[in-house]
């Protein structure tokens, strides 16, 4: 609830302060009219005092109007707020003192509300609430001292406190909200601009480095950076890894880094899977890719994901390696344990097809 230190130079606060100034002058005008009418009706005991108070308040309003445009930060200082609230208090007291009886409409009841709103805008809802209630209590005290005993006045006076307090609190609340919304918009805008800059400049450069460099280490760094930045730009960085596509992409990156091959992830459709199935499929595909890189001299591996017609997902791992003669080859440990074993745990299966000379294709299925 504590008011935070703030600047008044931001456009929102400025426009609110300008609004307060406008209302302020309208209330002075109104006070002038009321005063004139009341004086001609002979309801005022001390018209000179009333006029003097109103003139002082008007003079002070000139100062605050000037400060609003010339020195918004100065506007928010406790000194200015103190003087403002003092002027409001003077009006509240004057309101009671200058009239002989209870008037229909007193001249100084509107302006103090602008002071309360100003406090709320400048110093937050708590300050606005305190200022409003204080002025309201002051009103109760002075009007009570003048006209004790009549319950209706007390209720009316208490009502003023509530009104002023609420006004101060609400203006502070609205201002805080506005500021927060503006901050969020600004943040989103910066992020978007940042993303565009990254996309147009850094990402292009990283892609160029990957293509033009013969240094595999540099290519790897550039590729990792590109992927990371792209994830940041698209906001994917918070995506959970149990999503099949991102899990496969991460794994492909790992394979590329570790085995020095190009590993592409292609998807026709990406079904939703249980986390365990995602993990199993990813692990099996990784193992199949590593096999291809190690034993078949593959340089390019394609992982193709699709929905299986009978449910679950199927992933084809195809490489451009030397291939083998399936009938004549015994399955190694990698195969039995890592691929078939991993898939069997979640009820999946694997099959392999290969022709010597035109690569190997492994099909992995999980329910």
């Amino acid at each position: 609830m504590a008011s935070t230190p703030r600047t008044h130079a931001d456009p929102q606060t400025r426009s609110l302060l300008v609004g307060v100034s406008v209302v302020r002058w309208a209330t002075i005008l109104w006070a002038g009219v009321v005063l004139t009418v009341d004086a001609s009706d002979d309801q005022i005991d001390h018209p000179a005092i009333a006029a003097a108070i109103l003139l002082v308040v008007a003079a002070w309003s000139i100062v605050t109007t000037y400060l609003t445009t010339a020195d918004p930060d100065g506007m928010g200082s406790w000194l200015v707020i103190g003087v403002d609230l003092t002027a409001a208090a003077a009006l509240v007291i004057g309101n009671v003192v200058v009239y002989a009886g209870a008037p229909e409409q007193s001249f100084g009841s509107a302006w103090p509300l602008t002071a309360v709103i100003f406090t709320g805008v400048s110093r937050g809802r708590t300050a606005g609430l305190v200022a409003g209630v204080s002025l309201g209590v002051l009103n109760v005290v002075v009007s009570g001292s003048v006209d004790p005993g009549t319950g209706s006045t007390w209720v009316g006076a208490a009502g003023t406190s509530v009104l002023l307090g609420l006004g101060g609190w609400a203006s502070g609340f609205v201002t805080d909200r506005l500021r927060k919304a503006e901050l969020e918009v600004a943040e989103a805008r910066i992020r978007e601009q940042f993303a565009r800059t990254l996309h147009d400049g850094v990402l292009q450069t990283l892609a160029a480095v990957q293509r033009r460099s013969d240094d595999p280490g540099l290519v790897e760094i550039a590729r990792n950076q590109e992927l990371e930045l792209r994830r940041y730009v698209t906001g994917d960085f918070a995506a959970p890894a149990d999503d099949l596509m991102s899990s496969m992409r991460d794994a492909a990156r790992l394979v590329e880094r570790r085995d020095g091959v190009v590993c592409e992830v292609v998807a026709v459709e990406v079904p939703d899977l249980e986390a365990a199935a995602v993990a199993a499929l990813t692990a099996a595909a990784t193992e199949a890719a590593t096999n291809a890189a190690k034993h078949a001299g593959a340089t390019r591996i394609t992982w193709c994901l699709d929905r299986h017609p009978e449910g679950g997902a199927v992933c084809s791992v195809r490489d451009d390696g030397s291939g083998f003669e399936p009938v004549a080859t015994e399955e190694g440990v990698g195969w039995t344990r890592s691929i078939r074993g991993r898939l069997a745990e979640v009820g999946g299966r694997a099959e392999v097809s290969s022709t010597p000379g035109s690569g190997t294709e492994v099909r992995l299925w999980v329910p």
Partner: protein
Amino acid sequence: MLADDHAIWRSGVRADLGEGFHVVAEAADAPEAIAAIRSQKPDLALVDLNMPGGGGAAVVAECAREVPIVVLTVSEAERDLLDTVAAGAVGYLTKSTRPDDLRRALTRAANGEPVFSPQLAALLLGEFRRLASTSDNDPDAPQTLSNREREVLAAVARGGSNKDIAEELFISPKTVENHVRNTLAKLHLTRRHELIRWAIEHQIT
């Protein structure tokens, strides 16, 4: 003709292309690219998807009939790519394509063959599947993929080369190519049909 708003990228591609290619013009945005295609009449245009002035899509929309256009992209915003291909680009390549793959793909594209990456095949398969599921109640729906075409696309998506696919399916590599080309033609048709249908449904006639 080479169009990309990044000079560093253009010079990089130029270097990668090597002796076998002659870059007749470079452009930094879509209007420049269109003007260059019109004035230089290149055999092939390599165009970045993200450029000022409407990007690669604008160039494809304007010039796809005049020159084979290959779209280059860093991102894989899939709908955009499919739309560009549907509009008449002969294919797309990601910017991380290795130089030798780039040269090979461009040589083929210059001969009017589609540049067909596994990604594009997967996108097409998914798209036709989507169309098939939405056009059940549409008696005028244009032809869907034949089984053979679907097989070929699936094989391309899995990373098979034309030669591998031909062997697998007991057809000639030329036939594989024809199937691929047909799927693209069907994509154009279905897109047009979708547009017309949409217009009729919304009474824009």
